[in-house]
């Protein structure tokens, strides 16, 4: 039973990691690549860790797995946010198919306003 749950988690986890890797190569600009990479990567790593917990099924391994997943969930979005912010403010362009950019509009207003 444990082995079946573990195997299913592991297969799904590696599948999402593969999807993340393909997405990083295929998507057109940095923001979309990060969207594919960070999220599917978190899901893939989390599922693989769960597979380990399900296989061993004892408290020491389970608490370590919970801690590892917690730290993934805390750190991944902070990293993605900082990379995205740095990229935008240093002028990395959006993909030509993008339909809307509110930040550009608002930054322009801010820059035209004289500093008080």
């Amino acid at each position, binding site marked *: 039973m444990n082995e079946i749950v573990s195997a299913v988690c592991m297969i799904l986890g590696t599948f999402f990691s593969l*999807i993340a890797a393909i997405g990083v190569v295929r998507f057109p600009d940095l923001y979309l690549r990060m*969207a594919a990479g960070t*999220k599917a990567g978190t899901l893939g790593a989390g599922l693989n860790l769960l597979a380990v917990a399900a296989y061993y099924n004892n408290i020491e391994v389970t608490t370590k797995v919970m801690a590892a997943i917690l730290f993934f969930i805390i750190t991944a*979005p902070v990293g*993605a946010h900082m990379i995205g912010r740095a990229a935008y403010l240093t002028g990395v362009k959006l993909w030509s*198919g*993008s339909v809307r950019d509110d930040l*550009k509009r*608002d930054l322009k207003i801010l820059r035209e306003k004289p500093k008080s």
Partner: protein
Amino acid sequence: MQLFLWNMLLAFIYAAISDNFTPPSFAFGFLIGYVVLLVSTRGTKSRKYFGGLKHLISFLFYYLGEFFAASLRVTWDVISPKPKMRPGIIAVPMDCNTAGEINLLANLITLTPGGISIEVSEDQKTLYVHEMYLEPGKDPVKAIKEGLERKVLQVMR
């Protein structure tokens, strides 16, 4: 918060004195402790914890559902030969005030596939989000405000 610590303590004691210290017995101890606290704090002021826990559980299920739906969507776009994305950056006016609320909302948006929070405006009232799917008919700002932000505020307040 104090009641939560009490609940954890009760769960821990239950798991320790029942012979097997495993995650299921801890969860069962937590459940028993919850009912005991629910009964024993009747009539006192510290009732907020019980409502909060209900919100927290409903929020967890809502978020997991959103997370998997969005993951499948991104997965499909990665595999399909012609991706149908319409990305863009939207400005979301926030009702969140404190740093903790803004932090939680921004991180949760970044964690769902398809959205990355890029920047918080200097007056901390607007959040700029890079969204992967902006459908022509729908208002993405409204979707975030009425979905995720409402749930976050329910949990935090």
